[in-house]
C-alpha cells in the first residue's frame, strides 16, 4: 500500500505542478487570443477547451488570483 501511495502521488491525473496562478494567467492570455481571432469575447467554455482543462478549474484559478470578498465595500466594519 505504501508503494501504491507513492506511485499515485507521483502520477496524479491532473497536473498538480500547474499552479492556479499559472492556469489563470494562461486563461487570460487565451481569452485575448480568442477575442482577437473571433472578434468577440470567448466564453469560459471556449477558453477551457483551448487550455484542455475542465471549465471549473479555470473558474477556480481565476477566482484564486483575485480575492476581494466584496469588491466595493468592506465586510468588516
Amino acid at each position: 500500500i505504501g508503494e501504491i501511495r507513492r506511485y499515485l502521488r507521483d502520477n496524479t491525473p491532473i497536473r498538480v505542478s500547474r499552479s492556479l496562478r499559472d492556469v489563470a494567467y494562461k486563461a487570460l492570455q487565451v481569452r485575448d487570443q480568442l477575442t482577437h481571432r473571433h472578434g468577440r469575447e470567448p466564453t469560459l467554455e471556449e477558453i477551457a477547451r483551448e487550455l484542455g482543462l475542465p471549465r471549473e478549474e479555470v473558474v477556480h484559478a481565476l477566482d484564486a488570483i483575485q480575492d476581494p470578498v466584496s469588491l466595493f465595500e468592506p465586510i468588516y466594519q
Partner: protein
Amino acid sequence: MGDRAAEPRWLELRLPSRPENVGVARVAVAAFAAQLPFTLSELEEIKVAVSEAVTNAVVHGYGHGRGVVTIRAGHDGRRLWVEVADSGRGIADIEQARQPAFSTDPERMGMGFAFMEAFMDQVDVESAPGAGTTVRLYKRPRPKEQASS
C-alpha cells in the same frame, strides 16, 4: 437517458453566516454558471452580484450573528437563476432598500442592490421583517456577436 438534457440543472449550497464563506458561494455559483456560455466578464458580474447578496445576508440579515445562508442556483441551458436566502431580520421597506446609495448602516455605501441590478438581467426581492430575505437573480448569456459586422 435520452431526454436527460432537458431536465433542469440545479445546486443547493448551505453555509453558516460568515464573511469567509462569501468566497465559497461565489466560486461554487461561478463553477455552476460556467455550464452556460457565459464570458469571463459575465461570470465576473455574476460573482459580484452573488457576493453582494450573500454579504447582505451575513451583514444585514444575521447582523454578523449566527445563521445559515442558503444559495440555490439553476439553469435550463439558456438562463441562469440564483437564489440567496436567509432567515434573518428581513427588510421593512424593500423599495427603499433597493435605492442606490441607501443603507441602514451609515458606514456602508448602499450600492449592493445597485450592483446586482446593473450586473444581472433581473433582481427580485422577497422579504418580511423577522422572517428573512430571499433575493433572486437572473441572467442569460449575451448573444455572441461578430465584431466585424
